[in-house]
């Protein structure tokens, strides 16, 4: 096992781009390789060593044997774990945009908040965010109709707008509240929201499941109310309590399902 620790020395006013510093690329790097590496910042590259002290312990023969630990204020470090296929990344602070975007394997643990675009178009692996996440988590990039297609995103705090836009597989679990348009254009997969949802979850969804344990302030009328189910099993997972099942979005002939806590959403029934 190889542990690579990044200890921040200096904060950049322009974001550092870390998409080349993933286990796939650095599993066989020595400290000297990091010291001479030039990290992209804006339209130029600068020595990584100006911004981080790097410690390397142990050896790795593959990305799976790498653990990267990032310490310091990472609010201006973006693309952490972007496109990684294996290994482990742990950050001990909040992170900037695109964390875990397009990752296909391995795990990322963010001990803080994540900016927008976290886990966008990820196809596998696990992304766990201990704080809040901003917009477009697990969504597609602009133009594409395929968001996250596999893997698991767990958010212990709240999620911003358009969570899981065009979700096409995998699971997103929000333990806090969620802003508007969760699961918009969703094609497949599962979104679980333990807290409240502001407005219009599942707009234009074609398929997949959204489970909301909190209340929804405004719900789209283009969903048909179906039965009330006690302790349902949804996408292979068991849920406790009474849920009202809605199907839609009928404006797109959708066959998606939204499960609302019956107790918290009496105002919609």
């Amino acid at each position, binding site marked *: 096992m190889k542990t690579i620790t990044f200890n921040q020395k200096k904060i950049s006013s322009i974001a550092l781009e870390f998409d080349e510093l993933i286990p796939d690329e650095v599993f066989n790097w020595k400290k000297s390789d990091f010291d001479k590496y030039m990290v992209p910042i804006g339209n130029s590259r600068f020595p990584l060593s100006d911004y981080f002290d790097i410690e390397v312990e142990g050896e790795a023969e593959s990305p799976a044997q790498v653990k990267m630990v990032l310490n310091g204020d990472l609010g201006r470090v973006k693309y952490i774990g972007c496109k990684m296929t294996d290994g482990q990344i742990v950050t001990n602070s909040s992170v900037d945009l695109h964390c875990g975007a397009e990752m296909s394997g391995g795990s990322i643990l963010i001990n803080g908040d994540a900016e927008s675009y976290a886990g966008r178009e990820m196809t596998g692996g696990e992304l766990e965010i201990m704080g809040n996440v901003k917009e477009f988590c697990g969504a*597609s*990039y*602009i*133009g*594409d*109709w395929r968001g996250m297609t596999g893997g698991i995103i767990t958010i212990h705090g709240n999620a911003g707008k358009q969570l899981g836009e065009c979700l096409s597989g995998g699971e997103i679990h929000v333990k806090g509240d969620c802003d508007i348009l969760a699961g918009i254009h969703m094609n497949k997969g599962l979104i679980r929201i333990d807290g409240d949802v502001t407005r219009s979850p599942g707009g234009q969804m074609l398929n997949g499941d959204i489970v909301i344990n909190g209340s929804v302030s405004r719900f789209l009328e283009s969903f048909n109310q179906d039965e009330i189910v006690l302790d349902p099993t949804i996408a292979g997972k068991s849920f406790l309590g009474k849920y009202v099942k809605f199907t839609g979005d009928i404006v797109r002939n959708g066959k998606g399902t939204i499960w609302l806590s019956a107790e918290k959403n009496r105002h919609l029934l």
Partner: protein
Amino acid sequence: MEYIIKNGTVYDPTNNVAGEKKDIMFKDGKIVDNVSSDAKVIDANDKIVMAAGIDPHSHIAGPKLVVGRLYRPEDSRRGIKSKTDVTRAETGFSIPNCPATGYRYSRMGYGTVIEAAMPPLEAKHTHEEIIATPNIDIGALSLFGNNWFVLEYAKDNNIDDLATFISKWLKLTRGYGVKIVNPGGSEAWGWGMNVHGIDDPVPYFDVSSRDIIHSLAEANEKLGLPHSIHLHPNDLGHPGNYETTVSSMDIVKDVSKNSPVRDQTVHMTHIQYHSYAGTNWRDFESGAEDVAKFINNNDYVTCDVGQITLDETTTMTADAPMEFDLHQLNGLKWANKDIELETAAGIVPFIYSGRNSVHSVQWAIGLEMFLMVENPWQIMLTTDSPNAGPFIRYPRVISWLMSNKRRVEMIENGEVHKAVGRKSIIATLDREYDFNEIATISRAAPARAYGFADKGHLGVGARADIAVYDINPNNIDPSNDYEAIEHAFGNAALTVKDGQILVKDGEVVSTKESQTIWTNVQGLEEQENVLMKKIMPVFDKYYTVKFENYPVFDNYVPNPIQVNVQAGK
């Protein structure tokens, strides 16, 4: 600067050179038969030498490309290549940015490309994109098949005025030839309709597709244009459309050819999409046999294939009603555009998959056409880029054509759906192209079909557009070494354009500005003036642009290759 490409194995079908060891010499941008002792020697021993490739039908410049790029940013995220000291940054897979288009053709050893559909009203922008595309000569075919004036002339069988109109509009648009897309159908789309077969009346014009095709073919020959009519017939992509295709080819059988530089009176484009049998997508099957049989029996027809490459791509065509059908079929996003009085367009992303039975049979139909049309001078290599797949897949298509083993492997390994065994006869066709036939379908035949006397061959006086590939024909079995074939044709060892070395070992080492090929018909100036006096009231009444803003000005064509044609001669 003088050069000798020494000891290469040359394939030059136009000059009946098939795999001979020869030196190819060039000087001042032209092939010559002698150079001085100062000439720089390029060793091509154990390599293949051909004329640079000519793509007879591709969509690389114009408004639909721009719309495609704008509404498919996800495509622009693929194919990204950073700028170098020589090249600009490249983006895009199926709809690359303009510089990438030029570089990618160069890397494959291509030198000339025909943009297959230029709406006259948007011709200026098409030429702006041509200017922005380096390294290749580009000609654009102007769209005529749904133009209101054309429909009126066709209805009245007024061939004289139609010929004069074409002559004038090629000048106004700096176009190379006459393109017809879903004749009458794209106009009907303005009313939410389409036409099917060749005898459906076009709404409000009382004219049929048959009339439009025949009239435009007659007018084309009356002018003696270097290219024949370029026909995308009705019913593209509909099961059972092979009958429409055969009927469409039959329409022009009585039209006499009036050009010494080509053999055909009609060029059928992306014939794969027009060779479908069956009545719906359930009983859909190949109709290639009947279409190929007709072409084999009628030498006035040439075609290009539009081979499916089994990629995620972007479909874009002036056949707007077909694009709507496609959008209904796959449910993906759709862009629709009307070009007033002239044509329409639609764009839909498409994912061709070997796991899908229909897509697999489409793949087989394209290959059947390649393998069943006997004369390689009548069939040309295209993917109707980007519709059936991006042009960068030409090397892969070449490897399929040269290796029956590879085709059988794809069927047996499940890389294509097993339906190809039931719905096509591809598995029974064991023909394999040789290098000379590859040179014919990708160089010599397109050059002849377009009347390019100085392109597509390596004879003295031709442009020094040359491709060298790192293949030793004496030491390779394309049937087994298909991967090496694909790699070599995708990474030219050397690409020379007008005497300038652009590519070495698959990398772009220099760039040059593109040149615009267009046809200037001479001898009808007086008739054009008379006709314009009749046209202008209609133009002023119905177009939303002023005529003064309509023509392509000279500064839009800074590097012209002007092909002068004396009308009727």
